[in-house]
C-alpha cells in the first residue's frame, strides 16, 4: 500500500528509476501494479504512440534511434520500448536493440527500455501496452514501440499504438510478399529502409502502387510510402513527416473514438487472459479433463462440458 504511494510519488517527481520499476511491476504481474496504474491513470493519454514493426534486421532499431534523435531536435521527449523474443526453451532472452540506440543513453529527455516477449503474441509482450501507458503517464511526449522482428503483419501492435510504421528493406522479399503478409492492412506508414542498397526503387514502386490500388476510392487512409537510409541518417525527416500526416489525419477524423475502441480491445484481452488462468486453475481442471478424455470423449465434448460447468457456476454466483 505505502509502497505504491511511495513509488507514485517518486514517479511524479520525475525519477526514471521509478518509471523503470513501474514497468517491471507491469511485466511481472505484480499485485501492486493495478493500484499504481489507478493512481497515475489521469495522466495517461497525452503521449503519441508509434509502433515500429517489420521483418528481422530491416533496421527498426536503427530507425528508432534516428527518429528519437530528430524528435529530440524538435524538443519532444521520447520513450522507447524495444521488444525482443524470449526463448521458448529456456524462457531467457538476449535483448540487443539498445546497442543501436547507444547515443541516446545519456540524453535526459530519452528513456529506453528493453522488453522480452515472454510468450506474448504479435511481436509484443503482454505488458507492452501497459509499459506505453506508464511512459505516457510519466509525461513523455512520444512513445516509440519496436516489436520483435516479425515476418507476418501482427495486429497487436495496432491496438497498442496510434500510428503503425512498417519497416521493410530490399532483399527481404518483394512487394507481393509484403502483401501476402498482410502488411498493407496494418501499416499507417510504409518505410523502405536501406535505400542505399540495390532493389529499393523497385520495392518502393511496388508498395506505392499496391497501397493506392488497395485503398483507392475507399476513403480510407492511404499509407504513405517513404524511402530512407537509417544507417546513413538519410530521409528521416520524410519518415517523420509521414508519421505527422497520419497523426493529423487521426486527429481530424476522431482520435478519441479510435483510442476508445483500442481500450475496449485491451479490456477484452486482459479479461480473456485472466479468465483463462482462473477458470483453468480452479479445482484442478487438468485432472478432470484427463479423466473425460480417457473416457473416450472428444476434445470438443470436453470443452462443452467445462463451459457448461463454468457458466452455471457463474449463474449461481450472480
Amino acid at each position, binding site marked *: 500500500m505505502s509502497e505504491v504511494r511511495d513509488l507514485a510519488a517518486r514517479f511524479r517527481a520525475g525519477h526514471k528509476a521509478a518509471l523503470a520499476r513501474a514497468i517491471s511491476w507491469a511485466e511481472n504481474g505484480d499485485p501492486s501494479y493495478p493500484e499504481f496504474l489507478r493512481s497515475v491513470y489521469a495522466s495517461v493519454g497525452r503521449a503519441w504512440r508509434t509502433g515500429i514493426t517489420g521483418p528481422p534486421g530491416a533496421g527498426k532499431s536503427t530507425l528508432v534511434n534516428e527518429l528519437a534523435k530528430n524528435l529530440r531536435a524538435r524538443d519532444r521527449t521520447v520513450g522507447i520500448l524495444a521488444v525482443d523474443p524470449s526463448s521458448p526453451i529456456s524462457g531467457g532472452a538476449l535483448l540487443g536493440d539498445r*546497442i543501436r540506440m547507444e547515443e541516446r543513453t545519456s540524453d535526459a529527455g530519452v528513456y529506453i527500455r528493453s522488453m522480452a516477449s515472454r510468450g506474448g503474441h504479435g511481436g509484443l509482450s503482454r505488458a507492452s501496452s501497459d509499459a506505453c501507458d506508464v511512459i505516457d503517464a510519466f509525461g513523455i511526449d512520444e512513445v516509440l514501440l519496436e516489436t520483435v522482428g516479425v515476418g507476418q503483419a501482427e495486429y497487436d501492435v495496432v491496438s497498442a499504438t496510434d500510428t503503425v510504421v512498417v519497416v521493410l528493406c530490399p532483399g527481404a522479399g518483394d512487394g507481393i510478399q509484403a502483401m501476402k503478409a498482410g502488411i498493407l492492412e496494418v501499416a499507417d506508414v510504409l518505410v523502405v529502409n536501406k535505400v542505399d542498397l540495390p532493389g529499393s526503387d523497385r520495392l518502393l514502386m511496388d508498395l506505392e502502387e499496391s497501397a493506392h490500388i488497395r485503398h483507392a476510392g475507399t476513403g480510407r487512409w492511404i499509407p504513405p510510402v517513404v524511402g530512407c537510409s537509417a544507417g546513413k541518417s538519410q530521409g528521416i525527416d520524410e519518415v517523420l513527416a509521414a508519421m505527422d500526416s497520419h497523426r493529423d489525419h487521426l486527429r481530424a477524423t476522431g482520435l478519441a473514438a479510435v483510442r476508445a475502441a483500442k481500450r475496449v480491445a485491451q479490456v477484452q484481452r486482459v479479461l480473456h487472459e485472466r479468465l483463462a488462468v482462473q477458470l483453468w486453475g480452479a479445482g484442478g481442471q487438468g485432472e478432470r479433463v484427463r479423466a473425460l478424455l480417457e473416457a473416450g470423449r472428444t476434445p470438443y465434448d470436453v470443452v462443452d462440458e467445462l463451459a457448461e460447468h463454468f457458466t452455471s457456476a457463474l449463474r449461481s454466483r450472480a
Partner: protein
Amino acid sequence: MTEQKIRVLVAKPGLDGHDRGAKTVASILRDRGMEVIYTGLHQTPEMIAEAATQEDVDVVGLSILSGAHMELFPRVRAELVKRGMGHVLLVGGGIIPNDDMKKLEADGFAKLFGPGTRTDDIGVYIETEMKKRRAHSA
C-alpha cells in the same frame, strides 16, 4: 500471475575492443532463463549506470580485459549508487589479479570472476544470490 525473471545488464566499460567473452557470458545466462541486456563496447561508467537504471536490472555484470578495472569498476559502482541503484548485484570478470579482486569485493562488488572461471559458475552464482535476496524481501 507473478513471473519474475532475473534481469541482467552485461556491459563492457573502457576501451578494449574485444567482446566475444562478454557476448558468450550473455548468451549462457540467457540459456539459463535470464533476460540479458547487452549494450556493446566502449561504455562509460555513466552510460552503464544509466542503462541499468532505465532497465531496472537486478544484476550488472562488467567485463574488462584492458587492465583498467581498478579505475573503471569503482566508478561504475559510484554512478549506480548516485542513481539509487546501489542494491543491484554487481559482478565483474576479466583479467583481474587476486589482490584487485579482494579490494573490489571489499568495496561494493558482490563477486569477481578471474580468468579460468567456468561460465556455468557465473550463472549458478547469480541464481543463488538472487534466490537469497528474493526470499529475503518477500
